[in-house]
């Protein structure tokens, strides 16, 4: 492959292509406007554009396909040729799912109307998605017939795309499917209990346990074949045993596997159709916890890089910062394949210019190296883009995007590295445990019922006396995050997949663990602390591995709760409940101090180094203006580089003021 995925973009024939791009849907703009639109997108500072290729739009009523034959706006070949002529590189997203606010999500209606093809809930009802202007049965991604149907479209599409793949044309990466993963409902017991999915479940158990005997030992049953292993349809309730929990956890894990399997199946189809000469990527719709497993997708599904989508409001940008913090430790390329430029009309509240301005830098604050702004060219069912559907500028918005691209260029952002002292690690087993105690929910239940009602009661003692519940593991993580933010540590996020070499880049690691964890993770954490790291774990001191067998990697380690233990060159602290004071003392003794602090503990910061610059990002989470004093060892001045309002000149300050929900960036200059 002439294109290599780097942590900061695509390396094409030895040159780095930063992926800061904008979306422009060819079939939604008049063909005579295309050239002018490309010019205006370029004027905003973009040299990469992205588009979906919707199956439902190209499948004609006569059963054939329309790529300009009937409607000139659907001439993908001409659009790609024009993109190349205008000097753009292209990210192409051919589905099969595209959402795109289309009433059919890009699937031909014949697919959605086929009752035999839909995903089923635990009671055998079809899973229905109500979205925008339609309600439809969602297809099962375990059903081979979906792939057969899609392949007919791919067969028609591939020859047109092949001639535009790098090095012959502008297409430098192709997305495989869109926001794969149960149509926004991560709850494990919601779906998919279709025949096809249950068959895949048996296959998963076969892969995991290898022998029926091993399965029987884990589940406490006497099956004769994997096909007899019933899928759990509810969280383990009162009277449940550890074996029942094991079975529920297997289903939770299977939900990750189904995504891997589906993406793997699709990426192989794309390769079989001759599209494999450029990297493949994927996007999850927002969350990075189970069933969404980015490291596994990149390792096993034929996907080169996988990102997260975000459409934050001004008051919710911190979630996006955390998405980026996770991506920068877990993906080959920390990328937002969809980052809001405007929004869909039915979001609440509708994103406005204040939201846009306050959230432009949230991905960068968390360490993202690539962002695709969706949509820079407005179209039906969208509003608030910097360009309208004819390419006319909306000055206030357009200026913001120009400034963003200038910031990326001027700070040499692609060369930046996060200066994270800490890493907060959420073990995947803890996520599975929490997920095993969620109720099955339809889309509208999920949307309208209070989150407290999403949870099922979690019987105590399933994993032994005093073993923490999934909700307690999640609470430990939440407390560790609050601690790190309030003490102004610059920190990253990760899960069980973070390799030892990456752990070692951090002065401290706080790991949120249930009482069972993967041997590999335990080994890496032990390696980290033995080589000098400051490790805090809790709420459990795990004694079991992921199969509920005795954990071997921590043999010989016997910490007492709340008492630091020297392990090799480093120190370990186990806290059954997160104790901020004790954690702070532990880090102080380990000589870990925040590089920069703020007089207001509610302001959150992040530090990055780029070229010779020390970039300080600070976000005001409040709806009112806040002031704070910046403190750091030695003499220094702050040179403002970005504010939500007007672009700042070379003003220097140490007492900083942040507008409501603002993210500001300074270059921290040391003075003698």
């Amino acid at each position, binding site marked *: 492959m002439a294109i290599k995925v780097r942590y900061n973009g695509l390396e094409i024939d030895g040159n780095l292509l930063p992926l800061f791009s904008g979306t422009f849907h060819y079939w939604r703009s008049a063909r005579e406007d295309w050239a002018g639109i490309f010019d205006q997108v370029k004027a905003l500072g973009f040299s990469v554009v992205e588009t979906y290729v919707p199956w439902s739009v190209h499948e004609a009523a006569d059963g054939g396909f329309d790529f300009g034959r009937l*409607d000139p706006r659907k001439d993908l070949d001409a659009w790609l040729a024009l993109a190349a002529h205008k000097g753009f590189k292209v990210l192409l997203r051919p589905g099969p799912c595209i959402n795109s606010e289309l009433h059919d999500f890009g699937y031909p209606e014949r697919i959605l109307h086929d009752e035999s093809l839909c995903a089923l809930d635990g009671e055998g009802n079809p899973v229905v998605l109500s979205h*925008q202007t339609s*309600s439809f049965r969602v297809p099962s991604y375990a059903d081979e017939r979906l792939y057969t149907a899609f392949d007919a479209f791919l067969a028609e599409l591939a020859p047109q795309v092949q001639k535009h793949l790098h090095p012959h044309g502008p297409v430098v990466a192709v997305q495989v499917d869109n926001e794969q993963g149960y149509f926004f409902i991560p709850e494990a017991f919601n779906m998919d209990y279709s025949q096809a999915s249950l068959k895949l479940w048996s296959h998963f158990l076969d892969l995991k346990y290898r022998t029926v005997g091993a399965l029987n030992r884990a589940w406490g049953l006497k099956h004769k074949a994997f096909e007899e292993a019933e899928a759990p349809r509810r969280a383990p309730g009162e009277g449940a045993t550890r074996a029942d929990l094991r079975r529920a956890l297997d289903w939770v894990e299977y939900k990750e596997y189904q995504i891997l399997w589906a993406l793997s199946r699709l990426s192989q189809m794309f390769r079989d159709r001759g599209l494999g000469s450029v990297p493949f990527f994927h996007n999850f719709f927002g969350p990075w916890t189970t069933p969404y497993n980015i490291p596994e997708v990149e390792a096993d599904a034929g996907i080169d890089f996988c990102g997260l989508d975000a459409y934050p409001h001004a008051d919710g940008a911190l979630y996006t910062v955390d998405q980026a913090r996770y991506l920068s430790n877990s993906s080959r390329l920390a990328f937002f394949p969809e980052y809001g430029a405007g929004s869909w*009309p039915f*979001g609440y509240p509708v994103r406005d210019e204040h939201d846009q301005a306050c959230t432009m830098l949230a991905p960068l604050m968390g360490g993202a190296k690539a962002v695709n702004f969706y949509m820079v060219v407005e179209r*039906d069912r969208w509003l608030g883009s910097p360009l309208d559907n004819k390419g006319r500028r909306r000055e206030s918005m357009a200026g913001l995007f120009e400034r963003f691209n200038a910031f990326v260029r001027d700070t040499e952002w692609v060369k930046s590295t996060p200066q994270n002292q800490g890493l907060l690690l959420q073990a995947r087993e803890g996520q599975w445990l929490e997920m095993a105690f969620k109720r099955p929910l339809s889309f509208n239940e999920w949307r309208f019922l209070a989150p407290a009602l999403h949870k099922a*009661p979690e019987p105590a003692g399933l994993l032994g006396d005093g073993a923490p519940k999934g909700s307690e593991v999640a609470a430990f993580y939440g407390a560790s995050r609050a601690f790190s933010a309030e003490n102004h540590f610059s920190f990253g996020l990760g899960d069980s997949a973070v390799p030892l070499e990456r752990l070692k880049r951090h002065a401290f690691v706080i790991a949120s663990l249930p009482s069972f964890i993967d041997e590999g993770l335990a080994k890496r954490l032990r390696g980290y602390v033995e080589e000098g790291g400051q490790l805090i774990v809790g709420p459990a001191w795990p004694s079991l591995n992921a199969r509920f067998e005795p954990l071997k990697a921590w043999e010989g380690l016997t910490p007492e709760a709340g008492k630091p233990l020297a392990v090799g060159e480093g120190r370990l602290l186990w806290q059954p409940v997160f104790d901020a004071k004790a954690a702070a003392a532990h880090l102080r003794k380990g000589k870990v101090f925040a590089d920069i602090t703020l007089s207001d503990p509610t302001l959150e910061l992040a530090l990055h180094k780029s070229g010779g610059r020390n970039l300080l990002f600070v976000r005001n989470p409040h709806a009112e203006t806040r002031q704070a004093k910046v403190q750091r060892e030695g003499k220094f001045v702050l040179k403002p580089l970005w504010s939500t309002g007007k672009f700042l000149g070379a003003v220097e300050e140490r007492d900083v003021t942040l507008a409501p929900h603002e993210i500001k960036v300074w270059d921290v200059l040391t003075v003698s």
Partner: protein
Amino acid sequence: MPSLLAKECLIEDLDLDQWKRLAALAMHHWRQRRLYVAHEGGRVVGAYDTEKGGQPLPCAQVDDAQALAERLLAERQADGVAAVWVLDQEAYHAAIGAAERGLDASIGVDAYLGQEWLARFQAPGCGYAPKSDFLFYGLPWERLTRFTERMLPASCTFVLGVFDGDALWASCFAQIQDGRIVGLSTSAGLDPDDVKDVVGRDQHPFLLATVANRYRRPAFGWFCQREDFEAYMRAGTVEAKDGIFQTALMKNRATFDFNILIDRGVTPLAPLDPGSQAVDGGERGDNPRTRIPDPDEPGPTAL
């Protein structure tokens, strides 16, 4: 209930500020404070306030879920609770499942959600206060569907104009074809020079005429003041909305009007199917019946 909103509805030319105001009112109930009481076959197992979190159980047993919901709302409304759900989650989940099983793939989201709304209250042990007929984005949808079917011509544009003082605070144009909404837009779809002259509710005939010509079909409209519109959208029941609507009309704070004087492009001899392109997913500009007229080009009647 048939679908009023076409699946393929074109939604474009949305003024960001206006749409934000409309959406905030249409979806305000998503974030209004609610109290949930969960029970299992009548045994109360939890109570949750969306602002205050877990609550003490209001009672041990649910005998009449609807009565309990109404009683709790009456008790807590003064404290800021806007709605109360009482539900047996298993029964509720089963009821939603039955609605999903009965989905007719040809209907739109409005009709489906209407069916699902009814199914919720057929679930044993489920109560909701304030009890209301189905509201779709805060609108009494069944009533609007009936109104469209019986009172409006098959092809027209329904205009909502909301004024804050003299300023056009929000607008929404629903283009209707064969009794279904095939397009939604705002004043951003009009020539800005035309819109700037709409200062005050008494200017509504001009807005109606502009819309009629822009979308090439008769225009019918409701024009009101912001305070009444906000109260109408925030009202939790169809009956309460009715009262606000009628009062505003009677006190001359709202106006109903129409304009069927479309320019020479549309005549009794012209095919009256301006929306078919939109229904087919095509661009309005491709359709000679819906294209913005060129003043130098004679219309069919002039030939």
